[in-house]
């Protein structure tokens, strides 16, 4: 039963990869709409990665735009060593890391819909405690070593498997797991030291 599920999942991924490669080929032959299809397919994932790194709508918006501009300009050099999705998410991750490294992230949240505002209105105290805990978690994440932070941020994206994270980071699955584990240990230490 599990084997069937795994096989079905691998088959779906393979089909997805083949579809992307076909779209890339069509774009390289001059069909601009093929690129728009790829943008529509991955824009939310790219935005999610950018938002995970920056926690700022305006920065995430800029980074998503920059990612697709870079992909558009560099698609001719795409060698198909990895899937288009991995290649695209690698661009998004590298741009996000560079932005966070430069320390130029704006403090305002732009026009982002405040995901917790509704919850705060319904259950003010509980939501505020949860909000405060999340805020501390994100602040602690910024202090992690870059590779640990990268692995943790990508792994904590929904549906992101260790193999995908390893492909984006260009390392082994074992390295990803070790980085995530060490990141969580460090995160726990940082939170404990702050609460003391």
């Amino acid at each position, binding site marked *: 039963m599990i084997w069937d599920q795994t096989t079905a999942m691998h088959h779906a991924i393979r089909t997805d990869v083949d579809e992307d490669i076909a779209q890339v080929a069509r774009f390289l032959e001059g069909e601009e709409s093929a690129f728009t299809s790829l943008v529509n397919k991955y824009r939310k994932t790219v935005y999610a990665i950018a938002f995970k790194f920056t926690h700022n709508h305006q920065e995430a918006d800029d980074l998503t*735009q920059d990612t697709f501009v870079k992909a558009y300009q560099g698609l001719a050099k795409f060698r198909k060593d990895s899937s288009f999705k991995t290649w695209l998410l690698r661009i998004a991750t590298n741009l996000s890391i560079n932005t966070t490294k430069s320390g130029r992230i704006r403090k305002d949240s732009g*026009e982002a*819909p405040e995901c917790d505002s509704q919850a705060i209105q319904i259950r003010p105290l509980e939501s505020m405690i949860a909000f405060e805990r999340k805020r501390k978690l994100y602040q602690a994440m910024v202090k992690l070593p870059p590779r640990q932070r990268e692995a943790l941020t990508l*792994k*904590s*994206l929904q549906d992101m498997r260790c193999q995908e994270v390893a492909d984006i980071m260009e390392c082994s699955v074992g390295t990803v797991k070790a980085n*995530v584990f060490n990141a*969580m240990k460090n995160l*726990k230490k940082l939170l404990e030291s702050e609460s003391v």
Partner: protein
Amino acid sequence: MNTHDFHDFLDHPDQFPQDPTELELATMLKELSQETIPDPGNDYWNQFNHRLQLRLQEPKLPFWKQWFKPGVIFFATALGLVVAMPFTLRTSKPDRTLASLSSDSLIVISEMFDSDLWDPLSPELADSELDHLIETTDTLFEDSFPAFQFFDSDGWDEDLKHEG
């Protein structure tokens, strides 16, 4: 702490580790994974595609033209100044122009050169004053430099006679 349980959890997020410490880490990771990414909505995405199209239509500048962007020019100039500054400081000599002198020094110099002492040298000098000046200097030189006596014309003649 057995990390294999945590590593297995990374592959199968529904299988939580048994170890309490690992369980705590896994719970924290789960909490991070459940973070809601705000969806900006369809209007935003339509606008996003429109903006992206505009950016993609912008012609890409050739490499050499990228150097003429204002930011690049400013950065290159600033870098050039920073690099050149130590050399400039090392090679520059003390400023000895009038501008570098203090106001007191300027007053002293001004008084010296504007003083009446220097007036006799001017072409507008009165004749009587010039005669007086020549007399004074002649006396002065005769008193001050006995060597003038050596050049007495009679003395020269006597010497020449002896040699002859």
